[in-house]
């Protein structure tokens, strides 16, 4: 009996963890307690030397000195400030009017703005809330299918999880022991492809069920010229010229991939902004106007997000800032933006720092708990047990990837991203590496997969956010005066299903076409290590040195 217990301590420990977690006591402390309990049992049974537990403070200290984890509070804080700056609402208003009259136009606008906001910030923002408050009522007013409308909004909000500078990618890179910059480069194209898949789905809906996504009647959109036209030609010309300017400015640079796109967009928007300001000044003094209203307005709303993208991603890709510092730069940028728009108050900042502090505390404590757990778990060779289980799966790399993805997909129904990342990922990484799987590729695949944890009914955060702002009861529409039905929770759940399917398709695509990710190897532009003096010791993820164990 005892021999059986000792031989199977790792599986027993894992089962105990599952049981304890399911009881619903805070995960951080359950993890720590299981680690401690089995550590004490191990000492009692003579598996560990008695001062085995002395390694615990060192593990907590390792978490404190982890530069990458600092990105968690920085990006969270940035997201919280940005959400209140009104940037998302301005974008949704303008882009919605721009695309509105096209069939499915509002849905495309939501996806476009979702992707743009995702490239600005790293948290599943409450861009879902902005969309739920601004775009959803308009969609309902003009008779969008409620499932399509709510699905598009929830899914577009989760794009923040996979498009850099995503917090998910940062934590994933940390847990897999890879560079965050590489993870960003690798995830950039899959993130764009995924946004295109969402748009393609909307396109299919407009073909098959034209009534589900009607275009807005012309009188519903603003920004009219004196002659009644919409001034789209002017916008198109400005866009093309700005893009050419950006390209011309960048033609000799040796950047490529994500860096190139980010910098070109930055130069392009600076050019368009200069033109728009000039045009505005000319109109002030000479009453002559070159640009249409919509061209000018679109330029003005696009400046803040593109500026922030440059501030965060641009500085990271240019090698000016580490990913962590990029988060801090973004946070400062968001504060400046809020100040300029006069949306910042002492109360707002206080709310933001307090929410950030609590979130950091519970997230990092999950990691602290996981470290305590892994000290014992690795001590009883649990990592070898898991690695053996995973590497002995039939089908080699593909079999492993299929199994792991199915496993994570199911777990994502119950577990939060951070729990998955701190408990599961460290166990999967070594096995993947042993099978010759590139860990950046692996991380991006899992990132796309885990995005579903935000839209899985019934606990997905994005669905939760949408539910809290979507009308439940029938209401009288402000504009048309007609009675409009609310949205049922069932409609929100069903709306998410096609997007969960798209996520699965995307996982398969990334597995089938690794080149989407692997191009990161071409451009390794990170901060010059000679300038950042500190090298964070990579000890964090390693098992404790063998000398501490006393196997008999």
């Amino acid at each position: 009996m005892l021999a059986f217990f000792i031989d199977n301590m790792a599986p027993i420990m894992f089962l105990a963890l599952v049981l304890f977690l399911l009881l619903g006591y805070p995960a951080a402390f359950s993890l720590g307690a299981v680690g401690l309990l089995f550590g004490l049992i191990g000492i009692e049974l003579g598996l560990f030397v008695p001062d085995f537990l002395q390694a615990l403070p060192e593990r907590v200290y390792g978490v404190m000195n982890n530069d990458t984890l600092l990105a968690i509070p920085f990006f969270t804080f940035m997201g919280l400030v940005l959400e209140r700056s009104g940037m998302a609402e301005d974008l949704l208003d303008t882009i919605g009017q721009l695309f509105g009259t096209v069939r499915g136009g509002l849905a495309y606008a939501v996806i476009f703005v979702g992707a743009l906001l995702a490239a600005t910030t790293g948290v599943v923002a409450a861009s879902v809330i902005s969309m739920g408050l601004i775009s959803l009522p308009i969609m309902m007013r003009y008779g969008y299918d409620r499932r399509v409308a709510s699905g598009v909004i929830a899914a577009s909000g989760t794009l923040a999880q996979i498009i850099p500078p995503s917090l998910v990618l940062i934590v994933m890179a940390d847990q897999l022991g890879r560079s965050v910059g590489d993870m960003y480069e690798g995830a950039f194209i899959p993130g764009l492809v995924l946004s295109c898949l969402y748009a393609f789905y909307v396109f299919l809906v407009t073909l098959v069920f034209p009534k589900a996504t009607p275009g807005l009647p012309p009188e519903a959109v603003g920004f009219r010229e004196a002659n009644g036209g919409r001034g789209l030609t002017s916008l198109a010309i400005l866009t093309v010229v700005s893009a050419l300017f950006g390209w011309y400015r960048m033609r000799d640079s040796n950047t490529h991939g994500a860096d190139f796109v980010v910098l070109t967009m930055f130069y392009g928007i600076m050019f368009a902004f200069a033109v728009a300001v000039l045009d505005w000044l000319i109109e002030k003094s000479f009453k002559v106007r070159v640009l249409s209203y919509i061209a000018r307005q679109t330029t003005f709303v696009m400046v803040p997000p593109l500026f922030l993208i440059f501030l965060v991603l641009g500085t990271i890709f240019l090698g000016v800032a580490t990913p962590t510092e990029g988060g801090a730069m973004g946070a400062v940028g968001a504060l400046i933006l809020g100040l300029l728009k006069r949306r910042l108050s002492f109360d707002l900042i206080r709310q933001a720092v307090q929410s950030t502090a609590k979130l950091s505390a519970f997230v990092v404590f999950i990691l602290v708990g996981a470290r305590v757990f892994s000290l014992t778990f690795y001590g009883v060779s649990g990592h070898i047990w898991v690695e053996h289980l995973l590497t002995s799966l039939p089908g080699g790399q593909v079999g492993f990837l299929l199994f792991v993805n199915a496993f994570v997909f199911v777990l994502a129904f119950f577990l939060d991203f951070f729990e998955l990342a701190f408990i599961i990922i460290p166990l999967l990484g070594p096995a993947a590496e042993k099978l010759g799987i590139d860990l950046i590729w692996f991380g991006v695949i899992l990132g796309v997969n885990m995005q579903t944890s935000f839209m899985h009914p019934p606990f997905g955060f994005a669905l939760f956010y949408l539910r809290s702002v979507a009308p439940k009861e029938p209401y009288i529409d402000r504009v048309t005066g007609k009675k409009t039905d609310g949205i049922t929770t069932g409609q929100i759940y069903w709306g998410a299903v096609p997007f969960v399917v798209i996520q699965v398709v995307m996982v398969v695509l990334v597995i089938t076409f690794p080149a989407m990710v692997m191009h990161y190897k071409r451009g390794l532009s990170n901060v010059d290590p000679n300038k950042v003096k500190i090298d964070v010791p990579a000890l964090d993820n390693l098992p404790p040195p063998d000398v501490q164990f006393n196997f008999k």
Partner: protein
Amino acid sequence: MLDGLLKSLLPLSRIIDSINAWLGRYLSWLILVAVIVSAGNATIRKIFDTSSNSWLELQWVLFGAVFLLCSPWTLMSNEHIRIDIVNNLMPRWLRGTIDMVGHAFFLLPLAIVMIVTGLPFFLRSFEINEQSGNAGGLPQWPSKGLIPLAFTLLFVQAISELIKRASIMRGLIPDPHENQQSTLEAEVDHLVDAIEKR
């Protein structure tokens, strides 16, 4: 008898709560300080081509202080993340019991072990005035000292939670978290306010 004991302990619980909430509320501002320090580091490195290990290490110490010392406050606000899929289906008394058992047999022992091992860890460092391994860095003992300090605060907060939970189950005080908005819900409310004020 038990009720009398609990009643006499409730003031203690209130004192603990107010200390930890006060600490948490003020320390959370260190996030803003860390943001400014970190953005400043990157900017100064770019412009003046120089960097200081003290300033780099300072952001870690600030973050360490925030997440460690705000944890008791987070526990008090019932915001440490749980897997509530099964928990939500349980009757209230069972959930209360699980919390009591968890505080008593998971959290308290964990905190004790951390204090018992963390204190010598800190003292060893303090006695030799241990400096950073990076040239020009900060001394290490202050941040090492945060570990036993944080788990001491967590320990007393767990005691306070036990007193409160027992009192709630005996019907002595109302459950402060009964109609609690989760952090998420509170966030949503703040945001909707902010957006509708436009």
